[in-house]
Every structure is written in structure tokens, then in C-alpha cells.
């Protein structure tokens, strides 16, 4: 599991590899909270190399989205979300809570 962040003019891209489960979700939360504390509320989560997302991962993304959207400061968008993970989003009624882009370029371009 590896998490990297890349700073762009209008947003930051967080890229994670492997699984987002109860073990790794707190580390992702830490990275997301660090960006929000630094007042960087426009975030792209690049999921190209994320092959699994549990309910803990769904919760980290939801909490991050709530913090980003607070007082219309920004938003969290997702890129490269695979079909199986999208299925989980839809099952728990989170499908419409995130903009999902096919690639990082389009996601970055949304800001």
C-alpha cells in the first residue's frame, strides 16, 4: 500500500495503490485530513491502482467529501474507479455523492 499526493494549481491528486480496508483506511484519512487542514479543499482521488474498497474506505471518502464541501470550499472527485468498486458505491446509495471521471486529466480539469 502506498499513498502519494501531487500538487496542481487548482487541486491535489491523491493516488493510492492496493486495498482500502480497515488497516489502510486510517492512513488515507490522515492524508486527506492533512490536505484539508492546509486549506486544500479540491481533491482528486486517483483509484487506478485501488483494487478493493471496504465500507471503511467508503466512509473515509464520504467524510472527506463532507469536509471539502463544507461552506462550499471545494469537492472531492474520483478518477479511474473500477466497476466492482462502483457497485459498492451504488449499493450503499453513494453513487451520486461523487463525480467520477474516467481519467485523472478529466478529473483535474473539473476544477
Amino acid at each position, binding site marked *: 500500500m502506498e499513498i502519494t499526493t501531487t500538487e496542481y494549481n487548482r487541486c491535489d491528486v491523491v493516488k493510492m495503490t492496493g*486495498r482500502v480496508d*480497515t488497516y489502510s483506511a486510517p492512513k488515507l484519512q490522515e492524508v486527506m485530513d492533512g490536505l484539508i487542514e492546509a486549506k486544500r479543499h479540491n481533491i482528486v482521488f486517483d483509484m487506478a491502482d485501488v483494487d478493493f474498497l471496504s465500507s*471503511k474506505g467508503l466512509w473515509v471518502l464520504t467524510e472527506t467529501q463532507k469536509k471539502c464541501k463544507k461552506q462550499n470550499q471545494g469537492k472531492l472527485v474520483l478518477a479511474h474507479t473500477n466497476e466492482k468498486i462502483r457497485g*459498492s458505491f451504488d449499493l450503499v446509495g453513494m453513487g451520486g455523492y461523487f463525480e467520477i471521471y474516467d481519467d485523472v486529466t478529466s478529473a483535474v480539469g473539473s476544477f
Partner: protein
Amino acid sequence: MQKNAVFPGRFESLEKISVFVKAAASAAGLDEYATYAVELAVDEACSNIIEHAYGAEDRGEIECDCIVLSDGLKIILRDTGAPFDPDAVPDMDPSVPLEDRDPGGAGVFLMHKVMDSVEYRFTLKGNILTMVKHK
């Protein structure tokens, strides 16, 4: 075919448990979506065992049996923690706005949604969770 493995009850084990059940799902002939469903349900169940039945990491083990059926895969998870009935967790309502939701219920909700059956039993030896996924 039946395979058995025992894992330490800590979150770091989740990935190893996942590798174990995915191999069984493949042996059972499940497709990639059914395999992902098994991985998800087992991950949620094992997280609950550590968090709720044991109450913390490193307080006991998780035993996993994978039994290949003619029409799918049966998974039995055993722990020696306190009684934890996933069905006692209040149902998550996907129509409730996300802002108003409790973080707890989504895992159990997903387990029931993605598996064909989820059955819980508590015995003198601990909790036994049996889940089946058909092809």
C-alpha cells in the same frame, strides 16, 4: 474441496485473508464480480470480528474455512470473542442522506447485499458466521 487457515486477529491480516478466500473463489469457479463480493463480505466480517467480537486487535484468532460447493462457495468464519450478531446491527437505510448516517451499519449491509446467504451462530466456543455465494 475444503481449505482451512487461521489468522491473527489484527487488521494487517485482512489482506492475507483476502488472498486466501480469492484463491478458494477461483477454485469454486466464481467470476470476478462474485469473487469481489466474497472478498468484500469476508473483509467486512473479519473487521467486525476484530472490532466488535474481540474489541481490539491481537485478542484472538480468526479461523476461516472455504468449502467449494457444486454451485458456489461456502465460507465459515470462527472466532472466540464476545457474542457479535451482525444481524443485531441496525439496518443501514441507503435513502438516508449521507450526512445523517452512522458509520457503523454499511459493512453488515454490504455483506447481506453481496452474498446469497449470511448466517450467524454463537456457541460455547465462540461466534460462527457462515456465508454462501453462488456462481
